[in-house]
């Protein structure tokens, strides 16, 4: 939510805040907005971790969780003061191009627009990049070690605080990138957006198996499919019911997710 607001503010500052259905896409502005949102969300997440979670690292489980709810409330209110209570229009800056009819000459109900391509073109490299970071870099290795056993990794000489900060930075950066995609795809944003998005992200991650990038991608894909089918067959108002029911069902029957390995006390 704050990411979309960061994009919106950047675009407005650059003079593209109200553009609707433009013919030439200002790629440089979109790039800047993407960068701004990624940096903003990344830093914000690091800040939140520093202030609200790090002091609680050794507290019982309930404490960081409650503190996280508090942080989310604070964020929602920052959004409320930033852009007001009503939904805001997000400029429609991508070319209106349907590959199915204009490129292949097929006039079908199925459409594959430039927007769809844009989301794929941005999301897939990001996912591959994330998988690479986690699998191949020193930091990624440290991250996995910390996830498995914090105390042991501390004894192995890993700077746990730095690793966790980096993880939060990474999470924030990806959320920032997703927010530009969301804004450009849906052309609207509202201050309560994040609640839904966060729950869906969590559902997707759990569905795929926590701690597994390809699982998360698969989970996101299945979740998207399910919510689209729910909307088509039961109507838009049932979408969240479907999503949350799915979450409950997975956690009950297969808490490790589709591709996950057993993770002890997590579920």
């Amino acid at each position, binding site marked *: 939510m704050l990411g979309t607001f960061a994009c919106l503010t950047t675009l407005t500052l650059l003079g593209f805040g109200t553009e609707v259905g433009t013919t030439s896409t200002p790629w440089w502005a979109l790039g800047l907005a993407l960068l701004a949102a990624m940096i903003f969300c990344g830093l914000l997440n690091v800040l939140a971790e520093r*202030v*609200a979670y790090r*002091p*609680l690292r*050794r*507290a*019982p*489980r*309930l*404490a*960081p*969780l*409650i*503190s996280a*709810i*508090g*942080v*989310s*409330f*604070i964020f*929602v*209110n920052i959004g*409320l003061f930033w852009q007001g*209570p009503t939904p805001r229009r997000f400029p429609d800056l991508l070319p209106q191009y349907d590959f199915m009819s204009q490129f292949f000459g097929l006039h079908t109900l199925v459409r594959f627009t430039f927007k769809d391509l844009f989301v794929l073109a941005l999301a897939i490299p990001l996912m591959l990049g994330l998988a690479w970071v986690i699998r191949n870099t020193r930091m990624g290795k440290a991250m996995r070690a910390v996830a498995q*056993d*914090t*105390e042991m990794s501390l004894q192995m000489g890993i700077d746990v605080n730095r690793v966790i900060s980096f993880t939060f930075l990474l999470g924030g950066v990806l959320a920032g990138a997703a927010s530009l995609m969301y804004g450009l795809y849906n052309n609207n944003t509202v201050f309560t957006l994040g*609640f839904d998005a966060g*729950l869906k992200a*969590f559902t997707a991650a*759990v569905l795929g198996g926590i701690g597994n990038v390809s699982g998360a991608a698969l989970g996101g894909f299945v979740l998207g499919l399910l919510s689209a089918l729910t909307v088509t067959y039961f*109507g838009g*108002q*049932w979408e*969240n*019911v479907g999503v*949350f*029911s799915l*979450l*409950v069902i997975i*956690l*009950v029957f297969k*808490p490790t997710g589709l591709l996950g390995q*057993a993770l*002890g*006390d*997590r*579920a």
Partner: protein
Amino acid sequence: MKRPTLGWWYTTTGGARSRRVWVTVGGIALALAFPIIDGFLGLGWEAKAVPIALFIILALGLNVVVGFAGLLDLGYAAFFAIGAYSMAFLTSPQSPIPWVAQGNQVNFFLAMFISAGVAAVFGVILGAPTLRLRGDYLAIVTLGFGEIVPLVIKNTPEVTKGTQGMNPIGYPQIPGVVFGASPIPWYYLIVAVLLLSVVITSRLRISRIGRAWAAMREDEVAAASMGINLVTTKLFAFSLGASFSGFAGTIWASYLQVIAPEQFRFDVSIFVLVMIILGGLGNIGGVIAGGLILGGIDRILFDWISGIVHGVGSAINNDDLRLMDVSRSRQLIFGIALVFMMLVRPEGLFPSARRKAELHAAEELGEPAAEQERAILVEVEE
């Protein structure tokens, strides 16, 4: 009476005991005399006292789940909604049950108990799938439930009248007392339920099941190996918490005379959670204090501040100030309060001694106790 075993943590003696008795008696007297005091001082707070007292009932119920049993429930408002809608189904002429809609409204008090029972059943239904879950996962699933229930109510207008809401709803009939616009009878009804809730929860805390909850909260594996049946213990906490919420829901529905799904959103669950965290998880007196403080801030202080802000706005002719809605920052204040409490005083303002010891165990041991516990759990489950 002297209890031979385990007495050390639930019985106080000497000065502490007599102090507790005085606080209890004083609190009850103040609660009962409140409308008179209010009338005497001309504050006009009776109408505000009704929702505050009602939310304290909710807080007491949630305290059983979160404070006693240690199960973080973020969907507590769902049971509030279920209680309220059961009441509406049983007593409203708009009820989907044909027999009720034809004019055979169920007696309020009977409906109250039936509705609380319905809420308890839902507590078990929603609790059962979460039995294997812990910590964050449990919180998220309960949050999901909390979202599903209002959505389902909203999306089934043929049964629940959807967003339009159900209206009117039956009200209590006691000879000689008129339950209508005046909040005073409602206030006494709620205080009676509140006192009953306090008695029930405080007795439960020191009962066998209460000790089982405490053991489970501190270490599930150890509790299970000491012969505690985790399934029934957890489910009992869920259903009991839900029935309190259901009780509160019935009175709320009847008091407002109209209920709509929007009244039972996530905010309500969080509001109640903040109450018990602020006051002191697990401590009944603390929970009541937290409810009074937060309810007071929400219903009285915010009105007072916006009055001042609007007054200043009119005086200096500033439209921003004159029309500013202070209660819009309510969530912001709650958010800051939650984070701040967790950082500075995670046990709340008036903590129970036991809870405090748990939350500070890590510091005293000089060892990351929580982490250790986690590691042990991993070993056991693998």
